[in-house]
């Protein structure tokens, strides 16, 4: 059934379709509608779940941890400051290997306070041991939440489904809502191997002494690496059930491209339009969109970017004192590869700054120029920056 849904609604409906048993969340712009919709589903009896209306995001994730440890399918949603308040518990959730799924409507971080979109929030917690998926549109939001449970439960890893605040969270698009029976077939009920249960007492979250702590971290790293294969496998199963295809990355007219754009989230769809306009003029420009940022698709990116002459990364985050996180990881992917493309990083769209077609074209032009001269003069740049306001030449 097709219906016009915002990203928030798509996330809430996906959680309902997944038959989550415990929801624990706290409202925050721009995620609020996720919480509201789920509260309605529970109030109407459409969803048989406990919704814990917690007093903070820290408690939201803490309660999810308790519920997931007791063996129930759990869901939470947040944004920005909420994700930061959760951050301590993000590491605990992955360390305890609990298959919690979270929807994160990407929003910038204070200060100064900004409710608008960028991806600095989830990028700031990229080392928390959560699988991170970034969605291009609202269909992908719904589909990714369903896939997330499969990956989470089969590998005992928490998964964060990220979608751009306002741009997706508040924009309605036609979304195909799968039937409950189909979803039940794709996503069967699950059993945690060692839940909290008086019939078989277990201890969870003990003190990890130095003789074993490193091994537990390694096990988390290995499980996260294994989640690459799992994401592909679940993507294939999803195709079989729902006829929509998902992988770790999406390649768009990239096979023969000399110049590539690399991005994540809703910027993917804007960039596709630009790619089309270059292609119309016969210029070999393409796009690669990273869907899975954690696990980072190293091999897939080497394949997809390796034959291009230059790559412009467009990203809505920055690691002050370094560069954007997507650029850094992509550059690192090529560290032991003989033939690597030139790479440029464009920090853009922070705090809701519009990324226009002009900006994206600027990134294409810069990559084209680098390809022509065979070098990159300035690797990290800002797009759409009002330089006069900064008072510096950036």
């Amino acid at each position: 059934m097709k219906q016009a849904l915002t990203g928030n609604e798509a996330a809430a409906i996906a959680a309902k379709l997944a038959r989550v048993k415990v929801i624990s969340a706290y409202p925050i712009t721009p995620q609020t509608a996720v919480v509201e919709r789920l509260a309605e589903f529970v109030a109407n009896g459409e969803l048989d779940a406990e919704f814990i209306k917690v007093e903070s995001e820290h408690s939201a994730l803490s309660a999810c941890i308790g519920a997931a440890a007791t063996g129930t399918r759990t869901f939470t949603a947040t944004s920005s400051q909420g994700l930061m308040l959760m951050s301590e518990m993000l590491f605990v959730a992955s360390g305890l290997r609990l298959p919690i799924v979270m929807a994160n409507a990407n929003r910038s971080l204070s200060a100064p306070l900004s409710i608008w979109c960028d991806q600095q929030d989830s990028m700031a917690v990229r080392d928390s041991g959560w699988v991170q998926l970034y969605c291009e549109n609202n269909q992908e939001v719904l589909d990714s939440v369903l896939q997330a449970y499969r990956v989470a439960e089969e590998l005992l890893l928490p998964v964060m489904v990220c979608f751009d605040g306002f741009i997706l969270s508040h924009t309605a698009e036609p979304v195909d809502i799968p039937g409950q029976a189909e979803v039940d077939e794709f996503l069967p009920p699950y059993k945690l191997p060692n839940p909290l249960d008086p019939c078989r007492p277990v201890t969870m979250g003990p003190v990890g002494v130095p003789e074993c702590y490193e091994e537990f971290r390694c096990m988390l790293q290995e499980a996260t690496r294994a989640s690459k294969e799992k994401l592909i496998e679940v993507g294939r199963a999803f195709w079989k059930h729902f006829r929509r295809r998902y992988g770790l990355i999406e390649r768009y007219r990239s096979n023969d491209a000399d110049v590539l754009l690399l991005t994540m989230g809703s910027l993917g769809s804007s960039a596709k339009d630009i790619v089309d306009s270059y292609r119309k003029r016969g210029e070999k420009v393409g796009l690669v969109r990273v869907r899975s940022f954690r696990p980072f698709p190293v091999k897939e990116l080497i394949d997809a970017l390796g034959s291009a002459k230059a790559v412009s990364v467009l990203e809505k985050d920055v690691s002050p004192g370094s560069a954007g996180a997507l650029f850094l990881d992509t550059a690192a992917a090529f560290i032991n590869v003989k033939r690597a493309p030139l790479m440029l990083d464009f920090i853009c769209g922070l705090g809701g700054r519009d990324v226009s077609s002009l900006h994206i074209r600027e990134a294409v032009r810069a990559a084209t120029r680098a390809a022509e001269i065979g070098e990159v003069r300035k690797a990290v740049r800002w797009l759409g920056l009002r330089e006069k306001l900064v008072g510096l030449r950036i």
Partner: protein
Amino acid sequence: MKLTPGAVITEPGSTTRYQTNGWRTFRPAVDSGKCTGCGLCWLYCPDAVISRGKPPGVDYRYCKGCGICANECPAKAITMVPEERG
């Protein structure tokens, strides 16, 4: 030992593998003649090493020698004696 994902411990009460008797400098000695079997020593032991009974049994594998039992015994049936050099 193979580690469990998430560091879950599936063997309840497994601290009993670790004996805390080496911490002790004094050990409780029970005078069975004086003991009334009131069970206070059993109730008050933070390490659960005293069993109920008259006289009570002391599990010297785990007794840390805190001395609460001796201090609390209303019949003065427990004394703390220095641990022999071992």
